[in-house]
């Protein structure tokens, strides 16, 4: 067993959530590998602490066993607690109701003769009422509102041709021209072969028709507009000087508000350390990457998109700032600028901010929406007040390939401020 695999399986080991063969393999590995042993011990210590604090440590609670028993015994025959008779009545309610009905019917027939039809009607009301008394519904586990997902867009990449709705059925958006389409299909089939292990899909940006998401290996741009549904761009990071698997360097993105361009760079957590990473501008529609700065420490917060005043066409000017320099780039003319043109203004993207701690959202007006989401990664997009877009992992973790994900559109109607949803 390799160390990488060992480390990912440590949590499962302690919860006995692995096959016995794997456990034996792990036990063997541990006796031979010092660094893994240390990680293993660390985890053990953490779990022991939790166990001690939450289970083992003595706390001052008295047993109230006798009080409980007394309470039950005292009220045993007062009617609120089911005794033997009541239980028997319940288990034999079919017979009981039958007898009641028979007696009732006989009585009715006897008294009213031919008017059986209305009597039968009366009987049926009686039956429902009786059931109400006996069949107490057990308390429900989840009290919250459960919104229904509205028309989820599901893509499972091993069944791509079957499930996608676009004309060619290859998973590519109709807006992509044939040459690029061929390339994208090739990339997808390559990605399909890759195993998982490059982190979850996270959303970079999403507007009302386009969505971009990434893991540590690739960026995928997806158009979920009904007519143009499909992938319109894929970028592999292998040939770019961005990101890192180690340390605190992480890949960072900023998208133009129209979803046509992407600034890609690396956020180096430690300041004053020279970054050997570059800053790139990626044209999503034409799949062109341009290195616009070197040794750049990019933080998406410090990237601003400008557009011509009163001109809706995407003639973008983008500025990116780190602690050493500022890059100003004219996207349309592909050249660096000395200073910001006077006829442009900053375009602010509409945003909701996610609070990772409790999965609540704060919008720019300060409204807070609380959300409890399962099986979703921590990034979402509110299409409007009732609709949420999310990238979802595929539930089955076995045989999971890199490309398996779902883009889900969920309708949430939030009345209590807390919503639980599951697809």
């Amino acid at each position, binding site marked *: 067993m390799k160390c990488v695999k060992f480390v990912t399986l440590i*949590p499962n080991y302690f919860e006995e959530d692995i096959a016995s063969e794997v456990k034996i393999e792990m036990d063997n590995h541990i006796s031979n590998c010092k660094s893994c042993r240390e990680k293993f011990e660390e985890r053990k210590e953490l779990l022991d602490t939790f166990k001690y604090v939450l289970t083992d440590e003595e706390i001052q609670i008295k047993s109230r066993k006798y009080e409980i028993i007394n309470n039950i015994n005292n009220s045993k025959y007062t009617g609120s607690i089911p005794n033997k008779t009541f239980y028997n009545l319940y288990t034999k309610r079919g017979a009981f109701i039958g007898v009641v009905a028979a007696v009732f019917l006989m009585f009715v027939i006897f008294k009213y003769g031919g008017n059986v039809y209305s009597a039968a009607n009366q009987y049926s009301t009686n039956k429902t009422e009786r059931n109400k008394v006996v069949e107490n519904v057990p308390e429900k586990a989840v009290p919250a509102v459960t919104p229904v997902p509205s028309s989820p867009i599901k893509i499972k990449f091993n069944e791509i041709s079957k499930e996608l709705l676009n004309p060619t059925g290859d998973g590519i958006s109709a807006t992509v021209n044939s040459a690029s389409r061929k390339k994208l299909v090739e990339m997808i089939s390559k990605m399909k072969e890759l195993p998982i292990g490059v982190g979850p899909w996270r959303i970079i940006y999403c507007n009302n028709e386009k969505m971009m998401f990434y893991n540590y290996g690739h960026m995928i741009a997806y158009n979920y507009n009904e007519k143009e549904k499909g992938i319109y761009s894929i970028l592999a990071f292998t040939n770019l000087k961005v990101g890192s698997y180690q340390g605190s360097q992480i890949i960072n993105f900023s998208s133009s508000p129209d979803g046509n361009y992407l600034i890609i760079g690396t956020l180096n957590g430690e300041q004053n350390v020279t970054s050997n990473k570059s800053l790139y501008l990626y044209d999503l529609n034409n799949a062109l990457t341009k290195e616009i700065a070197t040794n750049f420490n990019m933080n998406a917060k410090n990237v601003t998109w400008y557009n011509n005043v009163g001109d809706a066409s995407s003639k973008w000017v983008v500025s990116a700032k780190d602690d050493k320099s500022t890059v100003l780039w004219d996207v349309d003319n592909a050249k660096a600028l000395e200073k910001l043109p006077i006829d442009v203004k900053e375009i602010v993207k509409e945003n909701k901010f996610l609070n990772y701690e409790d999965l609540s959202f704060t919008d720019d007006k300060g409204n807070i929406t609380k959300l409890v989401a399962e099986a979703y990664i921590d990034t979402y997009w509110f299409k409007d007040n009732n609709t949420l877009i999310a990238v979802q992992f595929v539930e089955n973790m076995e045989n999971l390939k890199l490309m398996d994900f779902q883009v889900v559109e969920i309708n949430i109607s939030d009345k209590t401020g807390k919503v639980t949803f599951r697809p």
Partner: protein
Amino acid sequence: VIIINEDIDIVKSILMGNTELFEVIVNRYEIGIQRYVYNMVRNSETSEDLTQEVFISAYNKLYTFNREYKFSTWLFQIAKNKTIDYIRKNKKKVDLEYCDIIASSVDQSPENFVELMETKNNIFEFIKCLNEIDRQILLLRYTKNKITFQQIALILNMPESSVKKRYYRIYDRYELFINEKQNLKTLRYRGE
């Protein structure tokens, strides 16, 4: 003499009229339920009261228990609902205090004791910050009555795979939480 081991047999027998057997159930689960409730409300008296209510409620509704499930699953489900109800109703009163723990039971040096108290506070503070589902998953996992992932999934009415995924993520979050706390401390120390 019939020796009854399985919960389900005890329940059947109680429902047949042998109500005194409920004592076996109380023996088996009282401590587990108390601890689980206590970890949520952090108050001994409240957890004793709530535990009592759980058992009385369980007894009263025993005939509604669906025998396809494990009895403990059902019992913890009641405990969960009761406690959450209580917390909702007494939001202001349930201010998680850390002073409720017996100091004398810890037979350790003062340094170790302080360190332990800090860890304990960290863990409870962390639990307080978790969202409701994650909190339930964690606390249910740490009950004395060996609750499986499958049972947690039933109690919380969600897929088992999600329970696992969330459970494993909780520890990553805890480490993040501790790191951030450490960072804050350093900043404060430097006077920033």
